[in-house]
């Protein structure tokens, strides 16, 4: 049975519907990410699960028990706050022990658990520090240790890496995955950062305007987005909007400004004449100076941006449409601005979107 079940939950603030009839199941041991732009309702959904907000409709079931009306202090979930929310009047040990003390755990056991938690987040020796004496990364670790100390069934993490600088974020991301594997707790992380969601989670739900748009593994979400919105929000993408037409032996997409219809592999029922979009990831784009066999578009190179391992090449079609391609840096060495090349991709790499 699923650890967390959200059944048709809605939350309105005045005229604004922050969470709109969301249903979601999360299994035990999952590392689940709620991904969406800011204001999409993901934080409200998290607060509904934690108990800080009560849904206007729907139910929240944790481990088989309906907790919709249960106050936050009686729910078997803990939360790591975006601001960390460490108690400034308590030292690190006091912060980690706070929840255990509320539970009425005896002092020696409490001290042992605090040590265990400090070791888990590699902060042994910091027990007596006050929060204001810690760096951002250290605060983040203490906040994680505090939220894990009570061994919750479900740990909620609100933008856990947002307050860290880029290098630290990479390290912490790895650590967070490691810790989750070691403790085995179910993690539910809320983020607006698609890289973070793809790198952390075993499953992702993309949220927009209060609704879940797509749920799937990171590869599902990235390789097979179900809508223009998901394709556009998760990672960079080249989108071609057009009308479906009958091609030589299969369907193709007629796009304004591009002479030949774009070939495609329709994976689901789509009708000739209906509007659709084709999504091609920049790293799936191939560039060649000679016209390759089969389908290809003539384009002009606008700029080549060297980014270490790979380069981003900005292109423009004859009708002025902008495209981008990611190439290994050594492959982009010979490319000069203003030259005309051919861009192509293999049809299975292009995703047909009808929404």
């Amino acid at each position, binding site marked *: 049975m699923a650890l967390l079940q959200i059944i048709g939950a809605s939350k309105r603030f005045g005229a604004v519907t922050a969470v709109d009839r969301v249903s979601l199941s999360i299994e035990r041991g999952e590392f689940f990410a709620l991904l969406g732009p800011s204001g999409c309702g993901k934080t409200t959904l998290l607060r509904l699960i934690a*108990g*800080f907000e009560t849904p206007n409709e729907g139910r929240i079931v944790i481990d088989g028990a309906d907790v919709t009306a249960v106050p936050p202090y009686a729910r078997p979930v803990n939360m790591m706050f975006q*601001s960390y929310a460490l108690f400034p009047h308590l030292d690190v040990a006091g912060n980690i022990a*706070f929840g255990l003390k509320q539970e009425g755990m005896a002092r020696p056991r409490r001290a042992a658990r605090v040590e265990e938690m400090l070791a888990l987040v590699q902060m042994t020796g910091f027990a007596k520090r006050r929060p204001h004496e810690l760096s951002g990364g250290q605060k983040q670790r203490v906040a994680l240790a505090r939220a894990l100390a009570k061994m919750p069934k479900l740990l909620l993490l609100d933008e856990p890496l947002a307050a860290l600088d880029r290098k630290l974020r990479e390290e912490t991301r790895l650590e967070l995955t490691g810790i989750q594997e070691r403790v085995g707790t179910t993690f539910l992380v809320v983020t607006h950062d698609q890289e973070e969601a793809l790198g952390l989670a075993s499953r992702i739900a993309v949220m927009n305007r209060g609704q879940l748009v797509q749920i799937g593994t990171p590869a599902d979400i990235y390789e097979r987005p179900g809508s223009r919105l998901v394709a556009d929000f998760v990672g960079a993408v080249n989108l071609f909007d057009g009308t479906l037409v009958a091609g030589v032996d299969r369907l193709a997409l007629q796009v304004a400004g591009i002479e030949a219809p774009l070939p495609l592999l329709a994976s689901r029922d789509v009708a000739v004449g209906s509007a659709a979009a084709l999504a091609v990831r920049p790293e799936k784009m191939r560039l060649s100076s000679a016209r390759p066999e089969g389908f290809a578009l003539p384009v002009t190179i606008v700029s080549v941006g060297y980014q270490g391992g790979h380069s981003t090449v900005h292109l423009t079609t004859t009708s002025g449409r902008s495209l981008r391609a990611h190439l290994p840096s050594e492959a982009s060495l010979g490319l000069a601005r203003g030259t005309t090349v051919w861009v192509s991709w293999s049809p299975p790499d292009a995703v047909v979107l009808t929404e």
Partner: protein
Amino acid sequence: MTGMGAGLRRFLIGLPFVWLGVFFLLPLAIVAAISFAESADAIPPFKLDWTLANYRALCTGCLSVYTSSLALAALATVLCLLTGYPVAFAIARAPGVWRQLLLFLVMLPFWTSFLIRVYAWIAILQPSGLINRVLLASGLIEQPLPLLYNAFSVTLGLVYSYLPFMILPLYGSLSRLDESLIEAAADLGAPPRRVFLDVILPLSLPGVAAGCLLVFIPAIGEFVIPDLLGGPGTLMVGKMLWQEFFDNVDWPAAAAIAMALIVLLTLPLLVAQRFLEREVRRDRAP
């Protein structure tokens, strides 16, 4: 910095110090000197000397006045804290527009003279006053209650007058309280009572300390309230000082009373300052 600028700067910084020196330090030194003088039938009514007689008299004669003053001021402070804390808490948690209005209401009494507001209490508390008349008319009592000219009316007057000085600093520290700390405490299993005791109360202690000081220190030296609302049984230091100075024309005794009070009040101030400085350092840290 030009010579002129430096001179001007020195002048501007120096002015308040000169002011304090002439109108505060110097008079204080004079009072201190008089407290060691001998009372005399002259103008001014003392003879400079270095005697401890005034302080000795203070220890033997007026110790009870100090203790009753301390007790009354302490009681008023505790009552102000108990009534002021919920008010400050409610204001700090009220929605934006309400917050401004409620704060305004707390400060509204300052628009009327303090003296007039204390006089108004006489009209309310006296035997033929508002409260007694209502109670008599309703038949709840047959004799007017002795509400005025006793410890009750003095305490009431002190609490009434000093309550805003408790509410404002409490509001200051409660309104700065990060909402996510309260949520974090609840999330970690603390029911509302424990959230208050383990998080809100400790984090509002600087406000509690500041409010208590702002009430306790002026309350202990208060003269007008015990003079207008107090009876013969409620002698407070301020009133005793007045009597020694004006009624008995014993300047050295009055000066000794004042000096003893200053010393008595400096101690809690120093302790509180230490505490507040530590809190401020913690708050300002990144």
